[in-house]
């Protein structure tokens, strides 16, 4: 069990050293030596030209039950409104279901949910719907218990959910009860058709490294995906699907947490995730008051206001505006980055935007590498000029 170096094959070349994401390989007596802390990720194994690195994994003996069938998408709603992330996941799920030649089902819990038939228009063959007043606000204990019961009854082979704050909070609990694998914040989902496995690719180390992960023997295979990572298809209103109403099975499920009240963040006029244009500010703004400048530009463009991490850390703007690895993932038609240097954590949240404009006085700022158009200059001159010209149109 574990990782071993074949001392006969190892030449001590050191090629594997920089590939270890944890810096755990050293050369001792002209041979590679693995220090404590190895997670057996296998990055070094691929880098070795001499097949000298052996990672011994206990042969998976558990037989996968072939009674697991179908791909499920958890379609989240809030206050009766379905979230876009559900449509995005159904669009991706449709692709995966076609490859696997299986059915695609949406699972939706809530009360008086609007437009459930939209779920079939975006690709679901079946919708399991639980409409019950007690599921009105997202009570995690109830959602966890009920989703587990449904999965145990219908045995899907794959379950995908949005990595919203709600999804990231209750989906891991579902996985823990089912004792199965869950991969967070996937940015790529593909099928290995030969082994019927879901290949789940996600950023790790703050977006510096990508990892592809499988869940070999346990079912269902579970993933979460952030909003705006996958594109939603055009809904097909003529698609036929079955809406199956399921009664809320309260047996053995009680809520131990209670929502007292919700305090809405009122500074967010246009929702970041739904915006076509985002004007975003970084450390280069210098102080909280300067967000006013961006606010004016955003207003004339009909844009949402975003931020990189430093302004949020310094309390210039609420967290709900943060774009990046620990904030939101966005994919607008136009992203205007003002005074943002472009740390990898920020890029991870916005680099798939259609058009990126960067305004920064440092020509070496990494943001210019991903920018479609870059202006090297003082944002305090450029931004008001933009606002003025757009206003006069």
């Amino acid at each position, binding site marked *: 069990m574990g990782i071993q170096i074949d001392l006969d094959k190892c030449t001590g070349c050191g090629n594997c050293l920089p590939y270890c994401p944890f810096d755990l390989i050293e050369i001792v007596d002209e041979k590679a030596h693995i220090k404590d802390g190895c997670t057996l990720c296998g990055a070094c194994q691929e880098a070795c030209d001499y097949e000298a690195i052996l990672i011994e994994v206990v042969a998976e003996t558990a037989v996968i039950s072939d009674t697991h069938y179908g791909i499920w998408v958890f379609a989240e709603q809030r206050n009766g409104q379905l979230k876009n992330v559900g449509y995005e996941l159904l669009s991706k799920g449709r692709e995966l279901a076609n490859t696997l030649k299986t059915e695609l089902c949406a699972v939706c819990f809530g009360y008086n949910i609007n437009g459930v038939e939209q779920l079939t228009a975006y690709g679901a063959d079946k919708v399991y719907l639980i409409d019950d007043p007690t599921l009105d606000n997202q009570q995690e204990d109830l959602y966890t218990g009920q989703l587990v019961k449904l999965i145990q009854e219908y045995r899907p082979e794959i379950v995908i959910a949005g990595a*919203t704050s709600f999804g990231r909070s209750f989906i891991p609990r579902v996985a823990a009860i089912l004792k199965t694998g869950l991969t967070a914040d996937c940015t790529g989902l593909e099928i290995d058709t030969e082994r019927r496995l879901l290949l789940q690719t996600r950023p*790790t180390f703050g977006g510096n490294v*990508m990892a592809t992960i499988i869940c070999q023997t346990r079912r269902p295979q579970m993933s979460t995906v952030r909003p705006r990572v996958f594109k939603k298809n055009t809904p097909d209103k003529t698609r036929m699907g079955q809406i199956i109403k399921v009664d809320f099975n309260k047996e053995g499920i009680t809520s131990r*947490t209670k929502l007292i009240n919700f305090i*809405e963040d009122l500074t967010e006029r246009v929702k970041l995730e739904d915006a076509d244009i985002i004007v975003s500010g970084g450390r280069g703004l210098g102080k909280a008051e300067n967000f006013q400048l961006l606010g004016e530009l955003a207003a004339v463009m009909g844009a949402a206001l975003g931020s990189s991490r430093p302004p949020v850390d310094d309390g210039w703007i609420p967290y709900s505006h943060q774009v990046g690895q620990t904030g939101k993932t966005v994919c607008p038609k136009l992203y205007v980055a003002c005074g943002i240097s472009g740390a990898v954590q920020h890029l991870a949240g916005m680099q798939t935007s259609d058009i990126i404009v960067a305004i920064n006085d440092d*020509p070496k700022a990494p943001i210019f590498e*991903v*920018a479609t158009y870059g202006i090297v200059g003082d944002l305090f001159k450029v931004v008001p000029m*933009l606002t003025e010209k757009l206003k006069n149109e």
Partner: protein
Amino acid sequence: MNVVVCLKQVPGITEVKIDPETNTLIREGIKNIVNPFDTYALEEGVRIKERYGGKVTTVTMGPPQAEEVLREAISLGADEAILFSDSAFAGADTLATAYTLATAINKIQEYDLIICGRQTVDGDTGQVGPELAEMLGIPFVAYVSKVEEIESDHMRIQRMVEDGHEAIETLLPAVITVVKEINVPRLPSLRGLAKAKSAAIPTWTAIELGVDENTVGLPGSATKVIKVFFPQRVHRGEILQGELGSQVESLLDNLREIKVI
């Protein structure tokens, strides 16, 4: 209030750069640190102890050198620390990690509240907290930004969601994960540093925990990393030239041409 705070030792690589020649991480000067989000968990644990009495026990699962983060935690106000370390724990995914932590915390017995950071900066999953809660069979609240009031068997907290804050009441014991908005962590005190130096930190191995080796580490993991690679950045940069005024003009012309404005 007996609080258990879960910590993780991570490489301090949040500002890491990629070497464009070899496409690998540049790691000069990289040290292991306490996962930044966990420092807020620790601070909140210590504040709760100061307000309501009790003690703070910090725990971590990791290689022997992970003991460093526990000593640091003691210097910052933790009362006790336990290291869960065994080569059998290596290669654990979030499920196996949560299982190991749950088994160990059950052995600690005396706990009213377990606090974790919202996620680690290396794995970035945020899954261990909720999985741990489920394995202990106790309530869970994520992204807590304020602890308002603690009563004997329940507490009132605020947590962050996408579009605002929710005030929530939860039964105790519970697991919470915290965001950085919750507090400003203190610096170590001289007394704390002295205490950290001499503190006895027990190590619990798989034997002490009484776990079957097939339920922890890589064999106990449901997921497996099969490939690690560096992301390709899309290089599309066109730096506009000329005077600022004409750059702004040409930017707007470009944007109009492709009809994004």
